């Protein structure tokens, strides 16, 4: 079912000159605006939730709130992560809830550059149906 996402930090349109958190998935580099990022944690197994979209790994508790983990490889139609490979989670705030993006690794914080693909979280969330 489509989820309507209110205009909020995570879904704000990308502004190239703002700082972004850069991260890698399958050898490619992506970015999300730093304003909406709360923290970056090590990936751990998530609890599966019945009826969730297949791009949702599950939920993990973090600092008293539940974080929904989104498997970005599935979202972006990239090949699955090799077993045993390390992964990290970028935790975003989104209208009071917490969304966690599962990525291979985080590179750093910088303004956007040409080879980096900015992610539109709003579109990702709409695709979670």
């Amino acid at each position, binding site marked *: *079912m489509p*989820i309507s996402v209110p205009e909020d930090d995570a879904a704000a349109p990308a502004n190239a000159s703002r700082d972004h958190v850069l991260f890698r998935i399958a050898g490619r580099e992506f970015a999300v605006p730093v304003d909406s990022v709360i923290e970056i944690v090590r990936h*751990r*197994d*998530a*609890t*599966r*939730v*019945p*009826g*969730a979209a297949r791009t*949702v790994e*599950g*939920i*993990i*508790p973090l*600092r*008293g*709130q*539940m*974080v*929904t983990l*989104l498997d970005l490889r599935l979202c972006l139609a990239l090949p699955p992560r090799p077993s045993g490979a390390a992964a990290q989670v970028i935790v975003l705030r989104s*209208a009071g*809830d*917490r*969304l966690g993006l599962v990525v291979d690794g985080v590179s750093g914080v910088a303004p956007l550059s040409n080879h980096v693909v900015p992610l539109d979280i709003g579109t990702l*969330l709409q695709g*979670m149906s």
Partner: protein
Amino acid sequence: MSDERSGRPEREHSLREFVAEADEILEALSDALRDLEAVFEAGGPHLDLINTLFRGAHTIKGFAAVLGFPEIASLTHALEDLLTRLRLGGTLEGKILDLLHDTLDSLLGAVSDLRSGSAVFPALGPLSDRLAGAAAAIIIPQNESPGTTGLPERVRASLTEYEESRLQRCLSRGFHLALVRVRPDPQCLEEDLQDVARRVGELGELISTLPVVGERDDRIVFDLLVASSRPLSDDDLPRAIVEDRRLIAAPVPVAAPAGPSQERDGMDAAADRLGATLSLRVPVARLDEVLSQVDALSIALASLEREIGAVREGHPDDHSTRQMEPLLRIVLARLRTLQRGAIEARLVPLDQEFRKVGRAVGRAARASGKEIDLHTLGADTEIDKSVMDGLAPPLMHLVVNAIDHGIESPEERERRSKPRRGQLVLSAFRRGPSVVIDVIDDGRGIAIREIEGAAVARGLWPANREMSRDEAHEMIFRPGFSTASRVTTVSGRGVGMDVVRRAIRALKGSIVVRSAEGRGTTFTVIVPISLALVPAIVVRSGDQRFAIPIASIRENLRLDGTRVRESERGLIYERPDGPLPLLRLERLLSPAGGGATDLTTLGRYAIVAGGEGRKVGIVVDGLVRRQEVVVKPIGRFLGDLPGIAGAADLGDATAVLVLDPETLMPGEPNAHIGA
């Protein structure tokens, strides 16, 4: 409150908010005014009641000003002025009481007009003028203690009870009192004020910070009421922002106190006179913050416990590690107590709600022409504030329902040889982790044939089938049965019993009804005392764990495989008192999983949960332990999940789904359940 999109929706919201707040306050003021009349006739002291009226007027003025109702704000401002003069010792007279009644009536009328959608109400200007005239005519005796005559009236009247008691206390200790006007830089308002507060704190006490409504809008001006042990000098406060300093009172030589006990008695008496209270208003959010810190601590301790256990396993003979466990247990016990304390801080007595209901009963009875006696029991039973807030609307509806439809008119009651006055009982008591609330009336009861007829007419019941009493009692809760389009005069809107039941279920509670035709009806509502910490059983199913709230558990069964059979709706367990649908939790997670059920892999236990005739046996492989869990919302990205109340952190950094057995349906885990 400015908003580019603002217009009607914003305005309507303000209106609703104002009406809701004003209603409640005006009710309280009606009570206070009635009491004031009684006390005035008896010739007794009435300062407390004047104070109550003042605070109410002050609050309404604030709401009216902020939410955009200037006429009401002006009227309540004039009322405030009149009450201020009475507070300061002016004499109350009969014609002032009449004026207060008129004012209250006008306010009630204005709010009622607003509520029914008309934006215009009779002009309040003339009434404001009358109030101003009456206020000017009141003489205030100049017999205040010498220490406070210099204090401007408006400042004195704006002090809260607590501030007044602090003021008296400082004066009686021989402090100097000064009124300092400051004009801080708007760019660093907080810092400037904090700086001043700190400096004052070194010299004495900052009693009050009062914003001044000034002529110029570019800067915000404050009057600070400062009590100091020595007279203030120019260097004491930052010169840049101090505009004016006025000495109000120098200490009056006081006779040496006879002893510490006498001084204490004097101060206590002063506190009593001013009505200083022993309680504080605390925003609920602040308590929630404390509670969430305690939860975080609990999780950290659970991790510590695990680590200590692991260390102990590795070094079973080591003495110091052996010491750790009992120490940890002490810490956990103290934490438990702290957790309970934080939860109990949010508990409020049901009394508030019962009194509100009491007022509504009077109105409802008059509106429907019935005579009702209301009895309340157990008003001091405590319940979590948010549970009470959620309970208020359904409870009110049950009571109004009992008056509108349950209790008969006085004539009909006499015809049935019943006492003319109908009896309504509201009772509450605590039972374990729950509060049980009964709404009892001695009215006509639930007429089965009538219900049957209405149900057939609405297509909810086959015409040729006889309805049992239990079925009739269940039918009234069905959506579509209640005539939601009907509007009762009291509640102002039609609300069906299905909405009542859903509201109570949202609080993780339940409602049942017992009734005898012609004799009366009892609705029993059971809600948990607190939603924060839920006692639950952690269970294992496959490789996942789940938590099931104990409040939903009826019994635990050891499954006998021979009694399990398949049906088109899933597995059924044969029991002497009827078949029990079984639910396999792993099906919950992968509903499409598997064709034929392999009964050999069926779990060993079934937790029988649910109520009100909708029992289900949740099959599990094992019971892990009993634990109190804090149920957190899963997050909006996952939509609405029937059967899941939320998720909890058990202390090992993984989330465990907390089930809501009331909304689980075996065999159709994704179906949405109707009432």
